[in-house]
């Protein structure tokens, strides 16, 4: 046991700490504040404290727990809300009220709740780490697979169906003459990646329901992406849309240093919204970490690792997980603050020199893997990190370090936000390296996917070039074929890329629907070119009802969209005559 020697903000130095280890969790002072050793020198330990240090005094005791920071993993995670060090905020609300006082400790998993365990094997079975020994129905959507913790092996004994708390023994594991109880819960050091058999290249589309992402810049299951954007570009709305609608089995939302009201809004909406695929409440497939901007800074640093550890744990069950971290910039700022307190030599803009490696340590834990143990299963963890560049300047260190790691970039554009074009993902600056790998997936939905996507991207690119000319000479001075291109580009932007998060139909667009919409616009492009060649003015084409009907596609419900699009296409097949009839 040691004593406080110096206090400086969230960092304290304790003396008489011989025998401690780096990253060991310690308890500080009368209130037993939580902290973590981040450095040792002789008998002194440098400790980052996960709670406010106001009022601490030199000489107060510091006690090591002998353990490094562990995430608790087991049934009861889904639907819960945690702070950065995995204390359940729901339990804290019930036990200590509406405000977060210091020194409160709660378990991540409820110790009293009983879960119904159904064994998947009998006594006498030989098992190793990762083997599924049984299941618990955690929520209506999640079947929690109880696995032998990695690294353990032996013979199963005394396994029985029944109701258990997370601490009670559900089976015994015998190995080398010793017996270990197995429980529904396991613990894993948050900073250490969980093992798997082997890793695959991502190849399946992660359906997010956001058209510009799914169609133009697709994200693959097991991939890693970043969303940088200045304030007001709708970063948070974008991320919320992704965790709302992504067709994964489980989503984890890490609110790291962000707004409390927004967090409240997310929590509220997940109680009310239903998953489009299953019709069940979204809350049944979400885990939340809410370390808002006014909560202790140091806990931000670990919150991201707690989140990714939970993601890996469910991945190991063979599920597809999406983890969203909002915002990695606040996370980096927390590191900067600690670094400054430690008087480390700073790198760019005061950020620690290990910023890049810490960011990779996080993003690299994504991936699509073959899980340990039997039955054989494949799981994936996809990671999306928001970046909040100061002044929307993407040349700053966090954005730049992130870009070197991720394979997809969704660049949010202030100019688009000012034009109220949402989502504000800029189609000229964004990219996805997964576009090629998910091609095969897309072509099963629609064989002409690649062609339609390329056509659209080329049209948008040409529009950007023409815009420059328009600024000089005005739109009226352009030749007709350029006017037509501008018209089509505008339709792609307004009738396809723009998508309302608040419209009940438009908020989620399944892949087939997205394809129908864009391919109809591209068909209209061919149709209109035909008309223009016959001498029709672009202004006339633009005023046609057929174009108006295309612009209403967004609002047409899923069960009517096929018919709606069919009728548009039939009318287009009628050529110029169909415009003249006036009914079209």
């Amino acid at each position: 046991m040691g004593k406080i020697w110096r206090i400086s903000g969230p960092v304290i130095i304790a003396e008489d700490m011989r025998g401690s280890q780096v990253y060991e969790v310690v308890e500080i002072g009368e209130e037993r504040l939580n902290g973590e050793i981040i450095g040792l020198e002789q008998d002194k330990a440098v400790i980052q404290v996960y709670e406010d240090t106001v009022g601490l005094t030199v000489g107060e005791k510091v006690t090591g727990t002998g353990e490094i920071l562990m995430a608790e993993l087991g049934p009861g995670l889904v639907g819960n809300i945690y702070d950065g060090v995995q204390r359940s905020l729901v339990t804290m609300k019930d036990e200590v009220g509406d405000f977060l006082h210091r020194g409160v400790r709660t378990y991540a998993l409820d110790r009293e709740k009983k879960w119904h365990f159904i064994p998947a094997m009998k006594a006498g079975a030989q098992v190793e780490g990762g083997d599924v020994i049984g299941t618990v129905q955690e929520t209506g959507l999640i079947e929690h697979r109880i696995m032998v913790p990695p690294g353990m092996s032996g013979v199963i004994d005394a396994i029985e169906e029944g109701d258990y708390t997370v601490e009670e023994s559900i089976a015994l594991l015998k190995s080398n003459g010793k017996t270990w109880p197995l429980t529904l819960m396991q613990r894993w050091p948050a900073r250490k990646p969980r093992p798997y058999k082997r890793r695959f290249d991502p190849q399946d589309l992660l359906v997010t329901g956001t058209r510009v992402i799914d169609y133009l810049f697709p994200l693959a299951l097991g991939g890693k992406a970043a969303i940088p954007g200045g304030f007001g570009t709708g970063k948070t709305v974008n991320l919320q849309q992704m965790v709302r609608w992504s067709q994964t089995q489980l989503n984890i939302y890490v609110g790291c240093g962000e707004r409390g009201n927004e967090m409240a809004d997310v929590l509220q909406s997940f109680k009310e919204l239903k998953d489009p695929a299953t019709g069940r409440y979204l809350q049944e497939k979400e885990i939340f970490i809410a370390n808002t901007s006014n909560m202790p800074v140091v806990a931000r640093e670990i919150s991201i690792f707690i989140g990714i550890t939970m993601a890996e744990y469910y991945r190991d069950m063979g599920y597809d997980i999406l983890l969203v971290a909002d915002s990695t910039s606040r996370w980096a700022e927390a590191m900067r603050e600690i670094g400054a307190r430690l008087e480390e030599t700073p790198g760019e803009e005061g950020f620690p020199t290990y910023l890049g490696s810490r960011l990779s340590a996080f993003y690299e834990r994504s991936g699509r893997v073959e899980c340990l143990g039997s039955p054989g299963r494949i799981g994936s963890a996809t990671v999306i990190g928001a970046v909040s560049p100061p002044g929307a300047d993407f040349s700053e260190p966090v954005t730049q370090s992130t870009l070197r790691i991720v394979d997809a970039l969704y660049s949010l554009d202030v100019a688009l936000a000012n034009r109220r074009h949402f989502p504000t993902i800029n189609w000229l600056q964004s990219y996805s390296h997964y576009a090629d790998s998910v091609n095969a997936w897309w072509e099963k939905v629609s064989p002409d996917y690649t062609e339609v996507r390329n056509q659209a991207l080329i049209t948008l690119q040409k529009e950007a070039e023409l815009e420059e000319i328009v600024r000089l000479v005005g739109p009226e001075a352009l030749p007709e074929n350029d006017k037509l291109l501008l018209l089509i580009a505008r339709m792609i932007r307004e009738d396809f890329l723009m998508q309302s998060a608040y419209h009940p139909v438009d908020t989620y667009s399944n892949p087939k629907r997205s394809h129908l919409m864009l391919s109809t616009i591209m068909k209209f492009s061919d149709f209109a070119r035909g008309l223009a060649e016959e001498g029709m003015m672009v202004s006339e084409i633009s005023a046609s009802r057929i174009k108006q009907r295309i612009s209403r596609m967004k609002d047409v419900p899923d069960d009517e969209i096929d018919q709606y699009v069919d009728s548009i296409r039939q009318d287009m097949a009628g050529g110029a005559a169909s415009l003249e009839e006036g009914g079209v």
Partner: protein
Amino acid sequence: MDSMQLFTRQTKAISTARRSLLIIESIPGIRYNEIVDVELGTGEIRSGQVIEVGKNTTVVQVFGGVSEVDLLNSKVRYKGETLKLPVSPDILGRIFDGSGKPIDGGPPIISQKYQDINGVPANPASRMPPAEFIETGISAIDGLNVLVRGQKLPIFSGSGLPHNKIAAQIIRQASLKGKSEDFAIVFGAIGVSYDDAAHFISNLEETGALSRAVGFINTASSPVIERLSTPRLALTAAEYLAWEMNMHVLVILTDITNYADALRELAAMRGEIPSRRGYPGYMYTDLASLYERAGRISGREGSVTIIPILTMPDDDITHPIPDLTGYITEGQIVLSRPLDRKRIYPPIDVFLSLSRMMKEGIGEGKTREDHNNVFMQSYAMYAEGNYLREITTVIGSEALTDRDKVYLNAADRFEREFIAQDENSRRTVEETLSIAWDIFSMLPEEDLKLINEAYIKKYLPEPSRSE
């Protein structure tokens, strides 16, 4: 958490006095961040705060600076507590300085209850999403950038722009639609000129709002360190009124730029490594510790709504102060110098302004069913008119079509009739919406694509074909 001590300790062992810092010999029991008294040789007593405690030495930052501190006769006395505000219903109608002392000539506040001015973060799981429309009577806000209870919505201004006038108008007019109850007003003036502070107070007096208001005034000539405590005192008072007295509280903090500059000044004195433009790296977190005190708590009656005002240095919205603020707050009201030059009051830049909570606060049962449609259409119309105005400067108005000219005209009317209004005019949200509809009637009806057809039938006035 509070550790009151019945005895005090003091030391005369001061080894260094430089800028605002004293380095003193540590005495057992001194607590991190506690408030100490520094007694000068002359007998004058100043407050200070412990900013670093070590086994041998302790660093104290002195509020009011170290001028006249001498190393021989000055003393530092520990009290064992952090800065607290006495709270009771009697704080209403009172004016305090940046250390919480009354400056209105009234008696000190007697209370059993002292609240730490740093507050305690609300549990995110206990928060309730803000959703109740506040009618400010200002069309550019009520129509396009709706403020709701529990929101934090800053005003980004520039020097010389009428942000104080707008804030005063909001204080006078803000009410919850359909209810008569008034907001309690908490006013925190940070480093403002004496005249500005006096103006605000007399404004409150004239409208009779002073009896339901509390002011904390740190003028430009008061100690710099109190610029950090002023908003915290104000927010502590607001939280007390909201969470314990069940009141709806509107907090005006002006000017956050002075606050941030004080933060920078004090950080530099401590020799901290600066981040962008010399501001400390933790400025985001520090500002968040203020702004995040806005909100609603489920099961509690009151609310804390915060309108921080800041002047953007050189009107630059990417400057760290507006930038970091914008990342924390739920939108921003941005004032525009070009509009101000055109004598448009309030000169609110509709394109840069935004309220993230708007969707939750409007619509049927809250404002009116067509509100969101009107908002989107107004925005699209004004944006198109503005774009045309911009290209007209390059290509001349000759190249415009008749339709384009209608839009140019509509954008002008939108500025003059919708955005502009008198300082004393209080428009209901229905009045605001009908002004927009009136302007829509200039446009070809098929252009009203963003509005539900049923609303067009119901609200669009018969077009006046006089043009």
